């Protein structure tokens, strides 16, 4: 029975294949956008989590509400904090500024980070060439370039080492180049575009810019929440002039996850609208189909079809349209998500719930938007239907 019904549905749809394929395209686009958007959202979510893997789960950042009032914050101070903060393993301050970096005729606007020796290890940065900054560099005019910045300035990493670049109008010798770092969105700066100067040198060159933040790592087997509390308490006691806020990796992840979830939801909602449009297309096609096949409906009823038989027949046709559209859309959607991941250089992974959702939603759309036309067909007056001109 089901097989026969399905065969008849296919036959009937084949008779109006041009119109039916347009309806299928509508559904396919809807499903494809849902799957592509949700999958892309999931890929982005996984990508941000991957950045945390690079940075490490024990990472945290301390920022200040008003850094100007903080006064001097030297690497030595950071060491002093450590004494009062038993659960913190390491803590590094940095000076932030923005300056023009110039190599020959090439020019770039880049964040300047005044950092000390531990900065590279605490942030898990790796060198592509040369050496990292050393505490003995003091106020020497040395610098380390980020991976993207070096390309902007037109150097290969290795040939950049030993070159002189102008940072804020002053010549600095490049002592090292950083390897590309994927922890970009976790840290408050993008290290790939930055130029790193020795802490003391940066303090001297940019006296107006006090240290803006501290990076640290939580000691082994310490709850990051303890750190948050410890640091808040510490600054309340010894630095009343400004408020410190601590962001641990966990909190950052939670915040980012919230954002990406919202992002995925928004994309999904937009895609759902296009799916809705596809559903309306199916309904329109089915309404036309019911109007065109009044004679057939009347005949079937005259031969003994119950209302539910007619209803089933038309819902089945709508369902088939949507299923075909759903399958085509799923393939298209996965393809599109793969394309997005490919061009954004993200790791592509199939999000199975999205696919199931796509197929399930297309079935639901078929039943929902097929129901009303089928209801109309089932309620038709037999005599009037038989008398209507084809």
């Amino acid at each position: 029975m089901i097989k026969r019904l399905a065969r008849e549905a296919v036959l009937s749809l084949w008779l109006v294949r041009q119109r039916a394929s347009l309806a299928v395209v509508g559904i396919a686009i809807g499903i494809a956008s849902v799957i592509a958007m949700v999958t892309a959202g999931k890929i982005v979510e996984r990508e941000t989590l991957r950045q945390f893997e690079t940075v490490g789960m024990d990472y945290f950042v301390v920022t200040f509400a008003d850094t100007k009032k903080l006064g001097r914050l030297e690497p030595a101070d950071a060491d002093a904090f450590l004494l009062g903060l038993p659960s913190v393993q390491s803590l590094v301050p940095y000076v932030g500024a923005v300056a023009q970096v110039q190599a020959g005729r090439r020019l770039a606007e880049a964040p300047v980070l005044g950092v000390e020796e531990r900065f590279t290890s605490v942030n898990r940065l790796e060198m592509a060439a040369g050496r990292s900054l050393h505490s003995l560099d003091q106020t020497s005019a040395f610098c380390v370039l980020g991976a993207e910045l070096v390309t902007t300035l037109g150097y290969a990493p290795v040939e950049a080492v030993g070159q002189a670049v102008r940072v804020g109008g002053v010549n600095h010798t490049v002592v090292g180049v950083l390897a590309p770092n994927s922890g970009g969105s976790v840290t408050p700066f993008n290290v790939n575009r930055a130029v790193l100067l020795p802490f003391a040198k940066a303090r001297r060159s940019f006296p107006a810019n006090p240290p803006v933040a501290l990076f640290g790592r939580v000691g082994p087997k310490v709850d990051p929440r303890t750190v948050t509390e410890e640091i808040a308490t510490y600054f309340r006691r010894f630095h009343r002039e400004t408020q410190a806020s601590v962001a641990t990796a966990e909190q950052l992840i939670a915040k980012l996850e919230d954002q990406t979830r919202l992002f995925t939801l928004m994309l999904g909602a937009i895609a759902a609208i296009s799916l809705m449009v596809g559903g309306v297309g199916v309904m329109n096609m089915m309404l036309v189909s019911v109007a065109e096949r009044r004679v057939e409906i009347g005949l079937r009823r005259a031969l003994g079809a119950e209302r539910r038989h007619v209803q089933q027949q038309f819902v089945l046709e709508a369902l088939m349209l949507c299923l075909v559209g759903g399958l085509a859309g799923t393939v298209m959607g996965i393809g599109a998500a793969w394309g997005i991941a490919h061009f954004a250089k993200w790791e592509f992974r199939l999000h199975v719930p999205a696919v199931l959702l796509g197929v399930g939603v297309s079935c639901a759309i078929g039943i929902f938007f097929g129901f009303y036309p089928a209801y109309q067909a089932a309620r038709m007056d037999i005599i009037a239907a038989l008398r209507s001109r084809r």
Partner: protein
Amino acid sequence: MIQLRQICKSFPLGPLQIEVLKAIDLDIAAGEMVAIRGASGGGKSTLLNIIGLLDAPTSGTYRLGGVDVLQADDDHLSRLRNRQIGCVFQQFFLLPHLSALDNVGLPLLYRNLPPAAIRIEAKKMLERVGLGDRGAQLPNQLSGGQQQRVAIARALVGSPKLLIADEPTGSLDSEAAQGIVDLLISLNRAEHVTILIATHDADVAGQCRRQLTLANGLTFSS
């Protein structure tokens, strides 16, 4: 088998009610072959539609095989149409995208029979109407007479007790028409199917054992 009492049917036409059937009383016994004659627009089709359970009268009672069918709900009527009544129309009403065999099998589809059984029954019935070798053909590959034979086979595939034919020869030339009448007469004799034919063709009506005339909304035996 069929018992109509005081059957009335009126249609609204603007502010007026047009009475097409006025108090029809009619009894038809099982196995009869009855022709209903009358001018076009005289209510032949309306009467047949009511007897065929395709339409409901405005008032009156109708018993089919002892069942008061006017009290039945839509699903019950559908089942009665499916099992007790076969319909043949002037325009054949074959589904153009189905083969002759599938067209014939259509009523059995609504009895939830397995496809193989439907095929066997449909094939048998096509052979009975003399089209055993045409099962695979589509309706538009058949002549008018052949199409009407397919339609008769479809009407009788479920072995109903009653066959209702509304102007079955209306779209056929006289030769094909005679073939259809011969087929109906032989079905009535051999299978004892009760047959009710509406026709304005005196020649066709003359071959039925009982003839009724419908005029001014009333039936007269002739």
